[in-house]
């Protein structure tokens, strides 16, 4: 393709647009097939690639690595923004152990298995490290599309684990790649020191950027609402870039910063979250498409046996065993341990990490890449497709009420006093079945809207709240005690 401008750009955009739109439309297929939506994107990438129907010639590992890193930053930042700080605190210790000891344990076990299957030790351990981190997004998209909500502690543990475990996998991969290139250069002491430093610097920088971000967003008045997400995007990139330069884990910094920034009021909050949600989706799609383009299906056939064996070993032996050991001190019920062990799905991170040794020119890295690709796909299919079934089977569906069909939010660029809260009306509440005129709301509070099934009701004096309604109440901080005495716990809290 040696077209001149502007034709070259036009062709590029047309191809990108076609593939992007196709991916989005086909994302619905994952619902029917109950596989992580990422697999659909990956599949479209493969189809568009060198050996597929479009035959797009693409073998640029460096570009793939860069796209993957950018996409991960977007995904982790979005994940962090949507994870309340209180949830992170509640599961910080089990998730922290899973994200460090757990990752190392999984890497070691898979490494041993790979060695037994014929890989030399350095390559075998590298392979283990590359596939050692999980991707909660893979689990959540499956759950979301099947309309199941997971019990909070299990869900949060999986989520926070996957937010925290990429750094460890990155570090192990980098160190083992280095050892491949300079045999004998790997010392366990050095590795332990590097890992500790990366985690400490990463977490510290995350806190610095997060705190600074909160201050900044609380003070600064921008001319247009759309500028706020641009600012937060900048903070996300800064958190990654600066931290990585300082020998800290950039991914950890991004996640921590996002959790802190998302904790508390933000200007333009609903809009800001939606923009990051969209960016994270775009990141997912582009990342998997590019990774799909990078694969040569013909080469996969050669590693099918070994890939399948390792994928099953990871899903059935390594992950459940490591999770059981890591969670033992925390006394989780057995079925929760079993669940966390089973649904540790692998996402794009292993494939991105697998490009790393290829880029470094490590001998045998191409074969590792193919095996890793195979492992990720099998892993998404075998535990992946069973996620809804296992969730129900182990009784881990949450009893939480379904979300309202309509969402009402206050969108403001300035911090205003008062908030709009939604409440699910259950039998146990004093207000259930009571006409609104009986409710003597405090001066500054009022019910604003009732969502009943598919209906929106204007609250009038003789409107009675029915069980199952979602009631939107506007209240100022001083009236919250009254409101919660009547209406219970606000949703989304």
């Amino acid at each position: 393709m040696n077209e001149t401008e502007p034709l070259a750009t036009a062709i590029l955009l047309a191809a990108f647009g076609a593939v992007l739109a196709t991916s989005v439309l086909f994302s619905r297929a994952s619902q029917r097939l109950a596989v992580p939506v990422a697999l659909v994107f990956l599949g479209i990438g493969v189809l568009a690639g060198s050996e597929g129907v479009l035959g797009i010639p693409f073998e640029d590992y460096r570009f793939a690595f860069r796209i993957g890193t950018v996409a991960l930053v977007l995904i982790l930042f979005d994940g962090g923004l949507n994870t309340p700080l209180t949830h992170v605190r509640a599961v910080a210790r089990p998730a922290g152990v899973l994200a460090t000891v757990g990752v190392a344990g999984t890497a070691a076990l898979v490494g041993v298995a790979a060695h037994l299957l014929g890989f030399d030790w350095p390559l075998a351990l590298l392979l283990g490290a590359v596939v050692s981190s999980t991707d909660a997004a893979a689990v959540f998209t499956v759950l979301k599309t099947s309309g199941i909500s997971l019990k909070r502690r299990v869900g949060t543990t999986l989520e926070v684990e996957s937010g925290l475990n990429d750094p460890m996998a990155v570090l192990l991969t980098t160190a083992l790649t280095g050892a491949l290139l300079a045999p004998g250069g790997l010392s366990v002491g050095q590795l332990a020191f590097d890992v500790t430093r990366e985690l400490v610097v990463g977490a510290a920088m995350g806190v610095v950027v997060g705190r600074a971000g909160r201050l900044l967003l609380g003070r600064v008045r921008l001319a247009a609402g759309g500028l706020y997400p641009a600012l937060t995007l900048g903070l996300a990139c800064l958190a990654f870039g600066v931290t990585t330069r300082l020998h800290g884990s950039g991914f950890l910094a991004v996640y921590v910063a996002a959790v802190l920034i998302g904790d508390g009021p933000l200007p333009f909050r609903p809009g800001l979250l939606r923009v990051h949600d969209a960016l994270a989706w775009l990141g997912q799609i582009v990342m998997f498409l590019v990774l799909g383009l990078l694969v040569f299906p013909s080469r996969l056939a050669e590693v099918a046996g070994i890939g399948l064996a390792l994928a099953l070993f990871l899903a059935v032996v390594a992950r459940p065993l490591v999770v059981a050991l890591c969670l033992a001190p925390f006394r989780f019920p057995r079925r929760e341990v079993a669940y966390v062990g089973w649904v540790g799905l692998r996402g794009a991170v292993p494939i991105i990490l697998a490009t790393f040794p290829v880029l470094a020119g490590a001998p045998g890295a191409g074969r590792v890449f193919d095996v890793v690709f195979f492992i990720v796909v099998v892993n998404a299919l075998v535990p992946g497709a069973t996620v809804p079934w296992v969730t129900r089977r182990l009784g881990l569906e949450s009893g939480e009420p379904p979300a309202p069909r309509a969402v009402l939010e206050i969108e403001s660029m300035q911090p205003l006093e008062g908030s709009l809260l939604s409440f699910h009306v259950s039998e146990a509440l004093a207000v259930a079945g009571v006409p609104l005129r009986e409710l003597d709301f405090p001066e500054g509070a009022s019910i604003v809207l009732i969502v009943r099934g598919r209906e929106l009701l204007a609250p009038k004096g003789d409107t009675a709240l029915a069980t199952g309604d979602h009631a939107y109440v506007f209240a100022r901080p001083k009236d919250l005690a009254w409101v919660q005495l009547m209406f219970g716990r606000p949703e989304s809290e």
Partner: protein
Amino acid sequence: MQLIELLAPDRVRVPLRSRAKDDLLRELVELAAGQHGHEVVDALLRSVREREAVLSTGIGDGVAIPHGRTPRLDSLVLAAGVCAEPVEFGALDGRPVQICFLLAGPESAAGAHVRTLGRISRLLNRVSLREALRGATTSEEFLALVRDSEEAAA
């Protein structure tokens, strides 16, 4: 309706003896049930616990207003008291609870139930009343404080 009309002297206990949340709920429910049998106590306790499961009725500043409904009652009943020792109640502000009002009634009185709840919470908004109630040593003193406070508000 004035709270004092609902609050019979034999339904006020100063001090309340319980040291744990669930014991406290039972003590208050038994106090409210009065002469009613254990069916009323059981039904009411279940309803009160269900409400606590949604969110603690410890509304802050050491005040809790647990409440429940059961068709086995035929009118609103109110029980109240002050705990000897502050009780961990999972309150909204995280502080332990000392002043308790438990409101119960039938489904048919749901409107009055809600109005009375609002009334209790509004009355206890006053710092001076909360402090005085915490210092009360007998149920007579407790009742007198509530009566005076309601008269002052009227």
